[in-house]
């Protein structure tokens, strides 16, 4: 499991650019994975209050739930640590079908 830090897709640059445009922005980062999670620790997703998305934390399974949590984090100004896994009922809801488990940290850009 390696971090995707050299890839050209620079989510932080996108987040900074969106903020410069006056958007409210939150950043979600995969901080821990178990099993066959599709995206390694360090993968990022940037979200705006207006609904723009860049990057990915799961290859699509949990992005919706993470975006909802990001909007909450932007509203409250408080970061959140989210836990998704097959043993977790919530994961069934959002469909982490790959069988892996993943922890995602969501923080507002302030």
């Amino acid at each position: 499991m390696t971090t995707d830090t050299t890839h050209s897709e620079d989510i932080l640059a996108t987040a900074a650019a969106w903020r410069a445009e006056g958007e409210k922005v939150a950043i979600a980062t995969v901080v821990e994975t178990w099993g066959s999670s599709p995206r390694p620790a360090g993968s990022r997703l940037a979200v705006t209050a207006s609904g723009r998305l860049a990057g990915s934390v799961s290859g699509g399974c949990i992005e919706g739930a993470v975006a909802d949590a990001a909007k909450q984090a932007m509203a409250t100004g408080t970061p959140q640590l989210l836990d998704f896994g097959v043993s977790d009922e919530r994961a069934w809801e959002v469909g982490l079908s790959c069988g892996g488990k993943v922890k995602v940290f969501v923080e507002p850009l302030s």
Partner: protein
Amino acid sequence: MKADVLARLQEERAAQRPVVLLTRLTDGMQHLWPQEDVPAALAEAARAALGSEEATNVTLDGETWFIHPHNPPLRIIVVGAVHIAQAMAPMADPLGFQMIVVDPRRAFATSERLPGVSLNTDWPDEAMAVLKPDARSAVVTLTHDPKLDDPALDAALNSPAFYIGALGSRRTHARRVGRLKDLGHGDAAIARIHAPVGLDIEAVTAPEIALSIMAEIVAARRGATLGAPRPVPAPAVPA
């Protein structure tokens, strides 16, 4: 994440300096290492994360920190703005490499032929002195012209580059080895050169050769043990 942490993180990355983002997961408190002083246990984890290129979690005083390394980009320095270089260029970026093409022949080294690639039109010895290949660099020579390839290989062998490859047949390489030995390189140094360059996939066309070179570079970077060893190169013959 505070906007100033983001700005400083991006500044370090733009300057191609290694930087680690440390996040306390209980409240989102963040530090950048080595730019800020942090407790020894976190500094140690940060140093290890840069080395392994793996993000990790560390528990300090009962609280979990996320250790997120950001290394400068991997580079592929290609000598020769030739057809194979053109085929390598669009593969480099998605594979996580910054590609730089060195060729003093300005008719070849144009951004029209190599869009989005960093070009250097100095002679290879001068270009290599500026580019300074490091342990995160691969060097590939593609010109077939000893005047251009040899100085680049000489510089690459004097550098910690993780991969060195040279285009040319076994016969061409045998003559090249003779010249590099004349420059003072021993057998151990010569053995660092992948020649003929690229994995043996019976590549014929420029894109196929580019693919075989990129695959060999990825294998070197990831420390892969390759299944079928290449045949032993022919002994050197006098130039």
